[in-house]
């Protein structure tokens, strides 16, 4: 669980969807940060055992933040910034065919 510190009032937001739920994200946030801020506790399940995972390193090395972004699978959520209208989906197991 993460919460936002009181920020500058000028901070703008963008509308994204996480697994179909509409969420206001802070412009400039990465997908992983936006998910944590929105109370999402996991990003994906592992291909091996199906165990849930969530961002671990936030710097692009652990790959536990993999999500499907606008239909493209296995994107590192901690390296991609949110954009207006972005659709983020939790990833089940390995990258699905066609994604």
């Amino acid at each position, binding site marked *: 669980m*993460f919460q936002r*510190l009181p920020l500058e009032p000028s901070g703008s937001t963008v509308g994204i969807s996480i697994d179909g739920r509409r969420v206001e994200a802070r412009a400039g946030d990465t997908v992983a940060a936006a998910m944590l801020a929105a109370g999402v506790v*996991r990003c994906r399940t592992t291909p091996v055992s199906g165990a849930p995972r969530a961002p*671990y*390193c936030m*710097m692009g090395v652990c*790959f536990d933040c993999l999500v499907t972004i606008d239909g493209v699978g*296995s994107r590192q959520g901690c390296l991609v910034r949110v954009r207006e209208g972005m659709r983020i989906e939790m990833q089940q197991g390995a990258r699905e065919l066609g994604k």
Partner: protein
Amino acid sequence: MSAVAIRDAYDVAVVGAGPAGLAAATVCAKAGLSTVLLDEQASAGGQIYRAITETPVREKPVLGESYWRGAALVEAFRSSGAEHVAGATVWSLTREREIGVSVGGGAQLTGARRVILCTGALERPFPIPGWTLPGVMTAGAAQILLKSAGLVASGRTVLAGCGPLLWLLAWQYLNAGANIDAILDTTAEENRTRALPHVPRFLLSGYFLEGLKLVRAVKREVRVISGVTALRAIGDTGVRSVAFRRHGDVEETRLADTLLLHQGVAPNVNLALSAGVEHRWDESQLCWAPVLDDEGNSSVEGIAVAGDGAGIAGAQAAEWRGRLAAIAAARALGFSVPAVEEARARRELKRCLRGRAFLDTLYRPAKSFRQPSGDTIVCRCEEVTARQITDTVALGCPGPNQMKAFLRCGMGLCQGRLCGLTVTELIAEGRGVPPQQVGYYRLRPPVKPITVAELAALPKTEAAVKAVVRI
């Protein structure tokens, strides 16, 4: 698809926009060389100065002076004339200094007469039971969330481990008004005695007062439980509590919604290794580090390494090492840099390194936290346990590459970044030989996963043909 115009060739390519990379690129560009700085993040600063130009945390005292030092570095870089390519993942580097880089989903190739690798550090693996559970993350990750998004953990937060970053994060959290339930300090008791002889030099390093102030401030406000010798994260779909033990005591449990782990950092060596740069095991820092001369030149002609990727020494040392490598590169290409600048860089670097032996000794992570046993996951990607690894060693498996073939360990997307050190140490321990003899994963490009489509769109080169696919 080419998102950003990257030229075919530069005099100097610098990889990584942390303190070393920013300083190196600035020196090169100012000396008149065509310079490109390739960096994976969306904005310059690396991890230590992450989001320095755009952090939503506007109250300067929250992150502290050591963070804001980065602003001047970025400022100097911006006016240097060097090109900055943000969001650029470098996935290959050959001995001929051909660089494969992916920007915004488009792969491109470029080349440079000199390459300075400033790929920085990674947090050392902290393989305890339950470390893969959602809600368990590194202290560095929490710090990145704070710097780049103004987010802090809410609910019950426990920090565990050892090292300067753990204390720094705790201090920044308190400054930000965030709550910390407890700090489980895993610093081994014997380290305190062993570090004593290094105290005098540490006192001269400039880090002493800053560090002392910080640790004291944290201890005044947070319950610190020291002498922790065992840790477990407990939960089902996410962490619920953390269990710990002190020496022979009975196990105690504390509720936790977030568990932040840290036991130091190690050089991020993947790109340098894949380029064939010779590395050696550093026993004082328990990691692989490139073999370098005093200008940062590696065993591969034209490739230098600077910053924490050259051996952990901290942000200020990184800056000076970056400058030294850049001065050497400029000179090698026939450009002049005033001798006084080099002399100053050497002097400053020496000053920054004074406190290192103390920190390395005091915060040397305990063996039990580096070499797990039983069902503890070592390879997070392929979910390989410590027992599987030690059993395979007992069957005669001699090194990490063979281990990969047996167990798929180190074969996942992170390419060994989260298990490599642990696997090397477990095999060395099992075989009763030094880690140097065991070696590390053989790394080949792409060192970061890219898609087949990206590779297919490239002009065909050897690297592209040899490359593999992401799953």
